[in-house]
């Protein structure tokens, strides 16, 4: 009873008016709160982008369907691609990086907390701007509302001749604004990792997640810059009479392709390297073994970072490059298979000889390994330029990059959600619902994206709102669409699990997975200052050293 009288005033101060709490969230500079804002924001857009995909799949369920008009379909695939890349996966990646990196390197916040908040709100504003086009872009000619030039917006379709009204401007400005947000966050992550590690944590003793995010951030700075430059050039073309990409006045459509893909391909690695990072934290903990070949994993990541910057024109094998240029980009593209293969083998070796517990995060990581292997192998097919002359811009490509973005990246992100949810909320999620989510999503994913390869091989190009009967594409498109139902159900289970567990879940405790990195030494959820005493580490697994004083890691590293 006496505890009641002590606890009572505490809860009273905890319950602030809603307005105050919202005000705290909007003005926060706490890396953990900003991380959660990124994640919440991205999940909202994930649902929106998913609905757009669902409508497209209904339209393609049979030949000559007329569920939506070609104009609407073209807006849908443009918005779906732009949303998923820039306003779902990027914020998810940045959200986890924001939340985890200071905790994992023993810091109390990011290097520049206010820049951090500024970057988040820029990104958030960028996403809103894109969707404001639905209201605002019904321009002078009443032509179009949402952008409809495709997510890579090839010139000259974006010129004022072919894109009247303002929908393309909303697209351009939205990416320009969120691009500055991304660069700000990347600079912040770089500085935090390089300058704010706790005593004893040399670069070689960082968790792999920090290493991989370091490489990712470097790539963001290098890749977003040309995209930003290209957007500015496009604005100059559209409003100041420039002719960079205006082919009717001697501009170059191919130059836009180079600008876009010199951003676009590194972007794939910007998104997938954090996925590797999640797998590199989750697989060891659930296999109960240290990561196999840590130095090699770091080297392979850096290697991917460098080679990943020099493969962009494999998106352009069909634009009529010389045979020498084609051959060079075949070589660089295939070379990237080597460090990537090394990573897969190292994850396998980490599992080898372990005691693997198939909790939900681990299930998603095993799914990731399987699907990323296939995505890599179809990537080799597309990297062989002549094969790409057939497969490029077909549904095979669509299947391939969804294998990367959904099968690999989204699977590891789901794994990361389940793995760190107890840390972020202080509650355990429901393992039953988690497994249900995994199986539903796995079945849906494979129905959709395995069978999507086939119409590509049978000659079905992407971005067509309908197709002719008699091409042998109908049945595959039907299966692909049915798979979406399972993915949607899985996503619903995921959201229900998060919401239900947040309110009703069991208390998680500080270290539910018996894990080894510093974030698990803080309470769940961690206090605003993270660590009351800044920790000192001696190895890559500081909590292993604490738990096994007789057999610490630092003796072997």
């Amino acid at each position: 009873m006496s505890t009641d009288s002590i606890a009572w005033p505490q809860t009273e101060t905890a319950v602030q008016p809603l307005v105050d709490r919202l005000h705290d969230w909007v003005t926060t500079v706490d890396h953990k709160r900003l991380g959660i804002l990124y994640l919440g924001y991205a999940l909202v857009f994930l649902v929106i982008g998913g609905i757009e995909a669902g409508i497209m799949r209904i339209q393609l369920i049979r030949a000559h369907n007329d569920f939506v008009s070609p104009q609407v379909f073209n807006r849908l695939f443009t918005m779906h691609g732009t949303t998923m890349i820039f306003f779902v996966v990027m914020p998810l990646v940045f959200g986890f990086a924001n939340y985890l990196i200071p905790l994992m390197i023993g810091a109390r916040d990011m290097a520049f907390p206010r820049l951090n908040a500024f970057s988040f709100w820029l990104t958030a504003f960028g996403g809103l701007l894109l969707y404001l086009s639905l209201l605002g872009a019904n321009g002078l000619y009443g032509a179009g509302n949402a952008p409809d030039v495709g997510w890579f917006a090839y010139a000259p379709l974006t010129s004022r001749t072919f894109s009247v009204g303002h929908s393309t401007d909303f697209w351009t400005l939205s990416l320009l604004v969120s691009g500055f947000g991304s660069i700000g966050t990347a600079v912040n992550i770089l500085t935090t990792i390089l300058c704010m590690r706790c005593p004893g944590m040399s670069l070689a003793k960082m968790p792999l997640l920090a290493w991989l995010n370091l490489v990712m951030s470097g790539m963001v700075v290098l890749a977003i810059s040309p995209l930003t430059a290209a957007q500015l050039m496009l604005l100059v073309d559209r409003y100041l009479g420039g002719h960079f990409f205006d082919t009717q006045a001697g501009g170059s459509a191919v130059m836009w392709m180079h600008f876009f893909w010199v951003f676009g391909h590194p972007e794939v690695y910007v998104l997938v390297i954090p996925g590797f990072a999640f797998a590199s934290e989750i697989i060891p903990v659930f296999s109960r073994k240290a990561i196999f070949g840590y130095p090699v994993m770091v080297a392979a990541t850096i290697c991917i970072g460098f080679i990943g910057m020099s493969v962009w024109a494999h998106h352009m094998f069909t634009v009529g490059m010389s045979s020498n240029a084609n051959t060079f980009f075949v070589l660089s593209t295939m070379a990237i298979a080597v460090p990537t293969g090394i990573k897969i083998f190292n994850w396998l070796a980490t599992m080898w000889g372990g005691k693997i517990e198939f909790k939900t995060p681990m299930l998603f990581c095993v799914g990731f390994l399987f699907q990323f292997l296939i995505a890599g192998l179809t990537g080799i097919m597309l990297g062989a330029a002549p094969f790409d002359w057939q497969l490029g811009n077909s549904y095979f490509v669509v299947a391939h990059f969804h294998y990367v973005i959904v099968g690999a990246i989204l699977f590891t992100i789901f794994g990361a959600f389940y793995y760190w949810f107890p840390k972020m909320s202080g509650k355990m999620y429901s393992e039953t619902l988690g497994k249900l989510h995994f199986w539903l999503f796995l079945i849906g994913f494979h129905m959709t994206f395995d069978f999507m390869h086939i119409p590509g091989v049978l000659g079905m190009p992407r971005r067509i709102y309908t197709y002719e009967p008699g091409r042998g594409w109908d049945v595959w498109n039907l299966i692909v669409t049915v798979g979406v139902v399972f993915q949607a159900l899985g996503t619903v289970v995921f959201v229900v699990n998060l919401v239900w567990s947040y309110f009703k879940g069991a208390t998680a405790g500080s270290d539910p997975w018996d894990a080894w990195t510093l974030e698990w030494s803080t309470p769940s959820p961690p206090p605003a200052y993270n660590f009351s005493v800044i920790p000192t580490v001696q190895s890559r697994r500081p909590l292993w050293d604490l738990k096994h004083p007789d057999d610490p890691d630092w003796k072997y590293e």
Partner: protein
Amino acid sequence: MQMRGGKNSNTVDVLDTFVFVLSSAAVAAAQNTAPPLSPTNIFAPASTPAESIFGLSMFVLSVTAAIFVVVVSLLAYAAVKFRKRNNDDGREPPQVYGSNQVEVAWTVIPILIVVALFMATARVIADVQKVSPSANAIEVVAIGHQFWWEYRYPHLGVVTANELHVPVSDPQHPTPTFIRLLSADTDHSFWVPRLAGKTDLIPNHPNSSWIDPHEVGLYLGQCAQYCGTQHAKMLLRVYVQPRDEFERWIQQQRQPVSGTDVVSEGRRVFESTACINCHTVSGTVANGRFGPDLTHLMSRETIAAGAALNTPENLRLWIQKPEVIKPGSLMPAMELTDRELDAVTAYLETLR
């Protein structure tokens, strides 16, 4: 290391079997006149560039399939063998931090595979790209428009649209067709999967492609680069004909349009409305170039870039309400009276 050596010899066996199965399937496919599964199946090649690509594809598929089998077996084995047992003693497994020998092995072996794949690929790139037109080659200029194809035979004096005619090429005496690819507006891509890989048509950036179809027949494809609202109905039809039939087609296309001296009512309507701003009928005042040349319209099986069969009903509907056949196409609804529509349709049907 021992384990990996063993796997590799297995890999070779698997690979050989796989190549054998696939190549016998390919031979079967080549003997079939009707392509299996789809008229646009990339694995039913009928022309040298598509065949070179097919050969490379089978090699790449075999190698990747072998890698897939090996890695998935390892993954499945690890997931089953090393799962936590119910009777687990609760102790941590032995901690292994890495092994330089193993790392070197799974670095060097992939490098060797990559080198092999790269060399095979580089060879096919050269085979397809480094071919220049021979003396007896047919030359065609294909111009992409939103959302139709213009074909010009500069040496033969023929201009047509949407249906490309080429002679069959006997491997003993090849008569390949070289296609120069231009664009009048946005990016497009020329893709007839059974004849060759795709090549883009980009404004200010002339490209080229070549085909030498070995079998007579109709080959289908469609635009493969998003080019605007009606990208989906910018269909490709390539008619591969015996040499003499092709010559007859050329002769027929070179004929001036018949009956230019007769001024029917339909012709009067056609020549006094906006039709002539975009369409050409040679020998008349109609000389627009924005839309397809209609001089020999009736020699074509389809209208609207393959979106509809060339029947009088479809032709009439296309003039009256193009958005029914192809919403978003640049052909405007002509707002004619029923009588004028009938007359214009009748006139167009004389353009043989």
